[in-house]
């Protein structure tokens, strides 16, 4: 009788150890998956911004043809001023928050002149992680009909 109980006890102790080990391994893989998801989200946000119709250059021959990796400076100025206007906070806090979440989107023109715009900013004070992605872009100025060079920075908070 005593031996049977002892065997069962040891059996359950071993099972318990097994479960603890499994839970730790599962936790690590959940944490890895969550990190991977965050990186994926950051890349998707950067991709989304790079192809935003509100910023993209369009071909002068057809509005259906968009120019890759090119932002229209006048559109950048327009969107930046719209989203920084207090009367449009609903657009920023609802529409764009739905797409960009907690992130900061910043464009810096570095050639031929230097200027910068913050398109969107919703930071998180107690953020667990931050991913910063930089994308080189050409900046088209419709007034001078010339191209400049700049960097799009997308910072995503987890």
């Amino acid at each position: 009788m005593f031996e049977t109980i002892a065997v069962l006890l040891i059996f359950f102790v071993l099972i318990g150890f097994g479960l603890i080990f499994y839970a730790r391994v599962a936790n690590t893989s959940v944490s890895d998956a969550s990190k991977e998801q965050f990186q994926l989200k950051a890349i998707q946000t950067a991709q989304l911004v790079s192809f935003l119709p509100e910023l993209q250059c369009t071909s002068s021959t057809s509005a259906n043809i968009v120019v890759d990796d090119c932002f229209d400076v006048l559109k950048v100025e327009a969107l930046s001023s719209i989203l920084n206007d207090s009367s449009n906070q609903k657009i920023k806090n609802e529409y764009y928050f739905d797409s960009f979440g907690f992130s900061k989107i910043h464009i810096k023109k570095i050639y031929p002149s230097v200027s910068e715009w913050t398109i969107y900013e919703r930071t998180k004070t107690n953020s667990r992680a931050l991913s910063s992605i930089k994308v080189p872009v050409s900046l088209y100025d419709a007034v001078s009909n010339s191209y400049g060079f700049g960097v799009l920075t997308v910072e995503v908070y987890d």
Partner: protein
Amino acid sequence: MSSRKGVIDVQFNWVFILIAGVLILLFFGSVVLKLKDNSETNIANNILTNMQTIMSGAEVSANTVNPISIPDTEIKVSCNSISVGSITSDITKNKIVFAPDLIKGRTMITWSLSWAYPYHISNFLYITTPDFKYVIMDSDKGKEIYSMLPTGINKELIDDVSSLRKTGHKLSFVFFDNVYPEDISLPDFAGNMKDKEVVAVHVDSLNNEIEFYKKSGIRFEPVRKMPYLGNEMIIGAMFSQDAENYKCNMEKAMEKMNIVSMVYRKRTEILREEYSNTICRSYYPLTPFTVDYNINNIGDIKDSKESLEKYNNYLQSSSCPTIY
């Protein structure tokens, strides 16, 4: 006395073994069920993550068709969410996805088109499966829509519904202008199909309206009329097959149009200011941007588009920076 104790001992051992055995079985049973649940949740999460990635990819690259192998599971798609089993993932407001409410089978086809009215507003994403066939009634508009659909999608251009042959596909009919779904009788094989497997839309290109129909026996019955802007939305109606889903996506498209138009309005104001002392100034109008962008105002939006196209052409011919 000792033999009686021995009998009790043996009986107690059996009861003990029985209880311990049941407990051990219950324990392992619950572990297996938990692992099964976890594995199903993981698969559903993986499918949804991949779907979000596919949607993001398709959204940014217009005019691309992608046949994608998917696990043999049911994927429910609505305008605002996508779900596998009990796991649901949101579709963000900027993603306009026209898809049947249920995707089944091993292959899913995604296709995207750029929607410009008159300037580029968004890319529409269309999702279908090889189970669906799009049957388009022959007309000028019908030919236009037929040629827009890529080869990877099952499509057929027909003059007469009676010429349609059974192929085992779910059918989505598209009628144009003076040919109405309520005036036709479906062939026997289509009449015998489940009502949900055969749908129709009628496009009134003069009034920019799409009417959704449901099958009842061998006839079609009208369900609801909705407006449309551009061939991309007609294709959206064909793919979504449901008036509510179409309406929700159209509202998303209108919201996006409103925001993009605000940007173009601001851009036009800047150009107007920059070119205030030149001939260009008079070609930068602000009136077309004052339109209310909502689905009940399609006529005004259409007028605004025509007006912007006209001014843009003037600007182009006068060598001024264009509005879009």
